[in-house]
């Protein structure tokens, strides 16, 4: 427990100190939130632009931290031999991955607070009350686990440079096809259906159902989020290579 906690604190400290990670996890989401809320470059299905954009940006923040930032940082740690050295210490694979996921959760709490404050400043009116907040927390947690699993799956197998390109490419594709800033209704039917089977699409849809429409999360979204949250980390643990 002591090792896991110390490692988690170290992970958070390093995340906060990495400029490019701060840009990816906070800078870009804040920029997109403000830009798409204040401009009319895309059509949104709700009356208030920020009411549509804010839940999508919360999903994007999870995608940025759990998948992209985690994957790139872990990939380079592998490339620089950090993971190789950790392999010959008693920290162990489970505690190492557990610390990384805990570090991601802490970062995401900071992201959600900052993004919510910015969105509220743009006149966001979230719905759902306490039950809605709990549902949102569960959606973000499941989405985070799924995205982290995918990120570690890439980082644990690919060369750092290939992983960097793959993670950034995936970020762009998922940003555009998951209904985060572009409504799913504007996308081709095939993309629309596929999007909900990936964590960012399911998260954006579920968060919008709760926070924008004061409704419940669909069975498809829960099933998609739960399946990724279970399978991706398991696969990552099984296939992860330290060197």
């Amino acid at each position, binding site marked *: 427990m002591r*090792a896991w906690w110390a490692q988690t604190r*170290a992970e958070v400290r390093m995340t906060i*100190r990495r400029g490019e990670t701060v840009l990816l996890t906070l800078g870009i989401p804040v920029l997109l939130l403000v830009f798409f809320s204040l401009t009319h470059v895309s059509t949104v299905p709700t009356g208030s632009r920020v009411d549509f954009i804010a839940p999508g940006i919360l999903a994007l923040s999870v995608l940025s931290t759990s998948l992209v930032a985690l994957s790139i940082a872990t990939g380079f*740690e592998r490339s620089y031999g950090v993971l190789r*050295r950790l392999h*010959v*210490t*008693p920290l*162990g694979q489970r505690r190492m991955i557990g610390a990384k996921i805990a570090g991601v959760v802490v970062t995401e709490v900071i992201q959600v607070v900052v993004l919510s404050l910015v969105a509220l400043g743009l006149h966001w009116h979230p719905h759902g009350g306490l039950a809605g907040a709990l549902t949102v927390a569960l959606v973000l947690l499941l989405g985070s686990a799924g995205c982290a699993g995918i990120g570690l799956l890439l980082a644990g197998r690919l060369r750092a440079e290939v992983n960097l390109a793959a993670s950034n490419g995936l970020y762009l594709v998922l940003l555009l096809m998951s209904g985060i800033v572009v409504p799913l209704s504007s996308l081709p039917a095939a993309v629309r259906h596929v999007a909900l089977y990936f964590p960012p699409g399911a998260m954006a849809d579920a968060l919008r159902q709760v926070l924008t429409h004061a409704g419940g999360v669909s069975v498809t979204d829960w099933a998609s989020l739960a399946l990724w949250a279970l399978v991706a980390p398991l696969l990552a643990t099984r296939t992860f290579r330290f060197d």
Partner: protein
Amino acid sequence: MSFAIDVAHLQVHFGDRRAVDDVTLHVPYGQVTTLLGPNGAGKTTLVETLLGFRSPTAGTVRLHGLDPVRTHAEVVARTGALLQRGGVWFPMTPAQVMDLTATYYEQPRDPREILGVLGLDSCARTPWRRLSGGEQQRTLLGLALLGRPRVLVLDEPTTAVDPEGRQVIRELIRAERERGCALLITTHELTEAERTADEIVIMNHGRVVAQGSLDALAGDAVVIVDTSQPVDPFELGRRLGCVVTVDGPTRLRCALAASPAQVEIITAYLSEHGATLTNLATRASLEERYLALVADAVRESS
């Protein structure tokens, strides 16, 4: 007898290539064993197999009597390792990474004490990326020592380390041996092996080509004489009462144990023939023996 490191008929194959081929090696507690060999000899593959990075293709590997893959957690809790390509997070300082790594162990050594012993006090708060190669290497060695290991596996510990740093590392190696720790050290630097090893293992093409103490490997007593100009070896051999062979244009190899009287005969003989003694060694250096063994192995394999 229970060995700290016990390797029996180990084979590690990468496809058709035999990186390690039928290696048997035993290291008792309180002994320094140095693994020598050219690049591609299989040293690092052997070390990585010992540390559980890969499973043997055939044969067995045990550390503290335990399988390093199946009981990895138990093995690494009692083993310290310095890897060739082992790194530290770039923004971290030696003090920070020492403190963090100390939390992994149940009864770690005091990180401050290790930093002091390794001469890292002055750079303890310098980020990793700004440390010199020698400072990084000493920090990695310190990390390997944190858990009070009973086995230390050090892959090229003196690489990029300055002479003062090497002396510190040598003293640490001796102290760990005195503490009863078993040490397996790989190195290209034969002089380091000569200074610290109790047992030397020479590998080439994945196989052990020689194994033994420094004295055993260096061979029979011999006096190597370097002269300012060529001289007749047969006449010198007659005067010394031993076989003298030519080992280069101005080098003679006399098959005898050195004594002041014989050195006097040699200098007098050279003086008579207008030559001077430029160097005198009392036995073949480990380097000469090593090169000969590796060359023999290459000839046999081809």
